[in-house]
C-alpha cells in the first residue's frame, strides 16, 4: 500500500438486500486514489457511483473486499472527520442562515466561536458568497445554494472532498462558471477530490483521472488518466485532445450501457 | 383547639336539597361542634358510593336503595342517620299523554333517572306487573337526563321529578298544575328512603369517629332547623355556594322550603321505613335490576344517633 494513497479499494463489492432480491450495486472494484488527484466518476444511472462515494464516506458498508481511507477504515476516517461531502442536492437546512449552515459542521466539531466566525468568512469568500451570510437558503438561487453547500464541506478543511453530482441541477452556463472555480480551488489547496458526474465534458474538463463505470453489477470498466495540462481555460473543450479523451469516455460508457435501462 | 376534619360528599350539585348542610357550614355550626367540614358537591354521574369506597369522603348522602345496593356490591356502607324522613320522588304525566291512573301506563313512555335512582321505579313496575321493554302491554323507559325537558317537549308521557325541583320547573314553564297527573312513589307503596347519611362500616369501630359523626349529624339538623325557619337566608347561602351561577333565588327559596319539609323531627332512622324499603326492593328483584338480592345485615346503626341527646 502506497503511503500517499488516499483511497484504496480492493475487490470491493456491495450488494443491497431488497424485497425483490439482491441488487449488486458494486462488484470487484479496484481503485487507488493518490493525494492531490481530481478523480471523476462517470457512468449511467444506477451504476453505483453514489454508492461508491458513500462507501468511502462510511455511509454504506461494503459486503465484499476491502477499502481504506487515509490508510484507515472508512469508519475511522469518518470519525476523524477527514472528508467533506457535497451531496447532489444542496441539502441546506432551511431554518438556518447561510452563515449558520456553513457553520454547522464547525458547531458539531466543537470549534470555538471565534474560529467558527473566521472560517465561515473565509469559505464564503472562497465560493463568492460574501455578503449573503444572513440570507436564508430559499432567498438564494440554485447555483448559490450549491456553492453554499460546497462552502459547508470546505469549512473544516478536510483534505478529501467527496462531491456527488454537485452541479447536476444547474444550467450549463452557471455550471461552466462553477467548474472553473472548482478547478481554481483545487489547484490552490491541493485537496484530493472525488467527483461524480453524468456529463462527459464536465468529467474531462475537471479531472486528472476519469473512472468509467457500468451497471449491473456496478463495475469499473475503464480508468482514463487525463493528458490535459493542469491549467485549463474553458475553451480547452474545443481542442482535439479534449475531444479525443471525451470520445474515449463516451466509448467506454456506451460499451457498458444496456439500452433496456 | 384542633378541629376534627370531615369530608362530606353530596349526591348532587349544591342546591336547596342540601340547604341544611350548607347552612350549618356557613353559620359555623360544624366549627362550633369541633368539626372542620368540607362539603364536596356531586353531579350527574358522580357516584358518592364510589367516592367513599376510594377514600375520597368520610361521609356521604345517598338514597337508601343505592346505599344498600352498594353494600351488596362489597362497599360496606352503613346508614348512620336519616335526615329526610319522607320522600319527594314523584312521577308526573302531561295532559296530552292521557295518563290518569297507573292503568293507563301500558304503551306509554316514561322518563326515569338512572345512576342509582332507578330502583323505586323498577320496584313500582314490578308491583304493577308491567314489563319495561316497551311494547303495548309494557312501558317504554327513557333515560331521563337532567331536566324536565322530555315532558315539555312531549318526548315522554311521564317523567320523574323531585317535588322540590323539577316539578317546580314544569310549573314554571307555564303548564297549569291542574292539567298534570301526579304519582307519589310513597303513596304507590314503593316509597324508598331518600337522602340519608352513610359511612364505611370499619370506621365505626373508632369511637372518636362516632363522636365526630354524632356532632356532625347534630349540627346538620341544627342547620336544617335554621333553614326551615329562614328559607330566604338559607336560599341565599345556597346560591353563594353555587359555582355555576345558574340558580335563581326564587327557585331556591321554594326548594329550601320543600326540602326542609322532608326533614323529620329526629335524625334517627325509622326502622319501619327501613324495613319497608328493603321489602320493596326485594319484591322487585330481576336480572335487569338487581338492587339487592337478599336481606342486608348491619346496613344501619343507631350508635351515632344514640350518641345525640
Amino acid at each position, binding site marked *: 500500500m502506497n503511503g500517499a494513497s488516499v483511497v484504496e479499494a480492493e475487490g470491493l463489492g456491495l450488494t443491497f*438486500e431488497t*424485497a*425483490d432480491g439482491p441488487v449488486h450495486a458494486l462488484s470487484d472494484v479496484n481503485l487507488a486514489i493518490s493525494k492531490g488527484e481530481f478523480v471523476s466518476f462517470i457512468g449511467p444511472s444506477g451504476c453505483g457511483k453514489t454508492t461508491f462515494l458513500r462507501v468511502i464516506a462510511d455511509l454504506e458498508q461494503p459486503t465484499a473486499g476491502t477499502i481504506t481511507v487515509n490508510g484507515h477504515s472508512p469508519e475511522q476516517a469518518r470519525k476523524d472527520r477527514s472528508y467533506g461531502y457535497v451531496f447532489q442536492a444542496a441539502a441546506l437546512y432551511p431554518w438556518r442562515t447561510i452563515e449558520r449552515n456553513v457553520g454547522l459542521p464547525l458547531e458539531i466539531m466543537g470549534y470555538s466561536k471565534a474560529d467558527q466566525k473566521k472560517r465561515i468568512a473565509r469559505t464564503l469568500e472562497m465560493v463568492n458568497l460574501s455578503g449573503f451570510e444572513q440570507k436564508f437558503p430559499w432567498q438564494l438561487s440554485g447555483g448559490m445554494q450549491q456553492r453554499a453547500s460546497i462552502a459547508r464541506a470546505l469549512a473544516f478543511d478536510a483534505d478529501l472532498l467527496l462531491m456527488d453530482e454537485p452541479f447536476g441541477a444547474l444550467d450549463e452556463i452557471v455550471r461552466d462558471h462553477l467548474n472553473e472555480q472548482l478547478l481554481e480551488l483545487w489547484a490552490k489547496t491541493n485537496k484530493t477530490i472525488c467527483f461524480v458526474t453524468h456529463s462527459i465534458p464536465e468529467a474531462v474538463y475537471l479531472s486528472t483521472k476519469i473512472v468509467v463505470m457500468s451497471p449491473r453489477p456496478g463495475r469499473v470498466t475503464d480508468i482514463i488518466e487525463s493528458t490535459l495540462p493542469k491549467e485549463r481555460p474553458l475553451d480547452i473543450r474545443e481542442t482535439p485532445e479534449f475531444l479525443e479523451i471525451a470520445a474515449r469516455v463516451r466509448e467506454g460508457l456506451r460499451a457498458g450501457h444496456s439500452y433496456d435501462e | 383547639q384542633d378541629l376534627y376534619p370531615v369530608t362530606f360528599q353530596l349526591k348532587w350539585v349544591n342546591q336547596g336539597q342540601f340547604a341544611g348542610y350548607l347552612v350549618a357550614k356557613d353559620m359555623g355550626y360544624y366549627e362550633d361542634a369541633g368539626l372542620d367540614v368540607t362539603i364536596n358537591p356531586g353531579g*350527574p*354521574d358522580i*357516584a358518592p*358510593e*364510589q367516592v367513599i*369506597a*376510594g377514600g375520597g369522603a368520610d361521609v356521604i348522602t345517598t338514597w337508601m336503595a*343505592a346505599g344498600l*345496593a*352498594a353494600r351488596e*356490591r*362489597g*362497599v360496606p356502607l352503613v346508614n348512620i342517620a336519616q335526615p329526610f324522613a319522607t320522600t319527594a320522588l314523584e312521577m308526573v304525566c302531561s295532559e296530552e299523554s292521557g295518563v290518569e291512573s297507573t292503568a293507563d301506563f301500558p304503551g306509554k313512555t316514561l322518563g*326515569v333517572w*338512572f*345512576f*342509582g*335512582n*332507578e330502583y323505586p321505579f323498577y320496584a313500582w313496575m314490578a308491583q304493577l306487573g308491567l314489563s*319495561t321493554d*316497551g311494547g303495548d302491554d309494557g312501558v*317504554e*323507559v*327513557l*333515560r*331521563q*337526563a337532567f331536566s324536565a*325537558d*322530555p315532558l315539555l*317537549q312531549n*318526548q*315522554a308521557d311521564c317523567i320523574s321529578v323531585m317535588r322540590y325541583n323539577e316539578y317546580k320547573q314544569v310549573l314554571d314553564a307555564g303548564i297549569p298544575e291542574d292539567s298534570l297527573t301526579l304519582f307519589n312513589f310513597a303513596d304507590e307503596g314503593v316509597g324508598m328512603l331518600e337522602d340519608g347519611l352513610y359511612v364505611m362500616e370499619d370506621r365505626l369501630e373508632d369511637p372518636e369517629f362516632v363522636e365526630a359523626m354524632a356532632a356532625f349529624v347534630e349540627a346538620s339538623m341544627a342547620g336544617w332547623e335554621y333553614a326551615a325557619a329562614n328559607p330566604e337566608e338559607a336560599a341565599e347561602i345556597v346560591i353563594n355556594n353555587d359555582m355555576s351561577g345558574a340558580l335563581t333565588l326564587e327557585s331556591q327559596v321554594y326548594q329550601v322550603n320543600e326540602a326542609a319539609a322532608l326533614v323529620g323531627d329526629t335524625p334517627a332512622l325509622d326502622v319501619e321505613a327501613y324495613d319497608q324499603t328493603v321489602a320493596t326492593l326485594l319484591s322487585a328483584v330481576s*336480572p335487569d335490576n338487581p338492587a339487592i338480592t337478599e336481606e342486608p345485615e348491619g346496613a344501619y346503626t343507631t350508635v351515632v344517633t344514640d350518641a345525640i341527646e
Partner: protein
Amino acid sequence: MNGWIITALAVWLAGWGINEFLVRIGTRDRVAASAINIAVPVIFGVVLLVVWEGLVRGLNVPAVLLPPPSVIWERLLASIPNPIWPDFQQTFLKSVLIGYAIGCGSAFIVAVAIDRSPFLKRGLLPVGNFVSALPLVGIAPIMVMWFGFDWQSKAAVVVVMTFFPMLVNTVAGLNATGAIEKDLMATYAASYWQTLAKLRLPMAWPFIFNALKINSTLALIGAIVAEFFGTPVVGMGFRISAAIGRLQVDMVWAEIAVAALAGSLFYGVIALIERAVTFWHPSVRGGRGG
C-alpha cells in the same frame, strides 16, 4: 414484598426483553417479518394487562374503583348476549354507522359542490373550523331536544362531529392536484367532470381517507357520550353510565373494551380500504419502487 407485584414486574421486564430481541431480528422472510410486526404489539398489550392485573391485586385496589382484567373478561363473556350485543347494535350499528355515513357522505357532496366557488370555500372553511370547535357535550343535549331520545339524535351528533373534518380534508384533497397534472388535462381540453373524475378525485383519496380514519374514532366517542344526555335504556353509553351508578364497574370496563375493540376494528377496516384504494401512494407502497 408482594407476589402479585413481583410477578407483574417480572412479566414486564420479560416482555420488554423479548420485544427488544424481536425487533432486532433482521429477517428477509416476509411471513416471519409480518409475524414479528404483529407479535411485538400483542406482547406489549399482554404485558400491559398482566401488569394491570398484578398491580390491582397486589395493591388491593377496591373493585368498585378498578377491577382486574380477569374479572372484566369474565363479565364480558357472560354479558355478550344480554346487554352487550343489544347495546352494540344500538350504538354502533345504528348511531355510529348511520351518522358516519350521512356525515361523511354529505360533507363530501358539499365539498364537491363548493369546489367550484373559491368564494364559498374561503367563507365556509373558517366558519366550519369554528363550528367544529363547539364541544360535543354542548351539542348533544341540543340534538336530543331536536331529534328525540332514540338513536336518531346520537346519529345527528355523529353527523355534526364528522362533517367538518371530512369537508376540510376533501376540499384540501381536491386542491392537492399539482399544476402540471391540471395543465395536462387542459391540453386535452378535458371537461370539469372529466378532470374531477380522472385526476382530482384520485389525488384527493389520501386526504379523504385521512378524514375517514379520524372520523371513525370520533364517531364512536360522539355516539357514546351523546347517550349521556337521554336515551332509551339500551346503548353502550347508557350502560356505562347506569353501571357506574350501580357500582358494576366490571360492566363499565367490559363496555369500554367492546368500544375500544369496535373502534380499533373500524379504524383498521378503513385503513385496509385505504391501502387498496391508494395503493399507488408513496406512503402505502413504501419508498422507492422496483
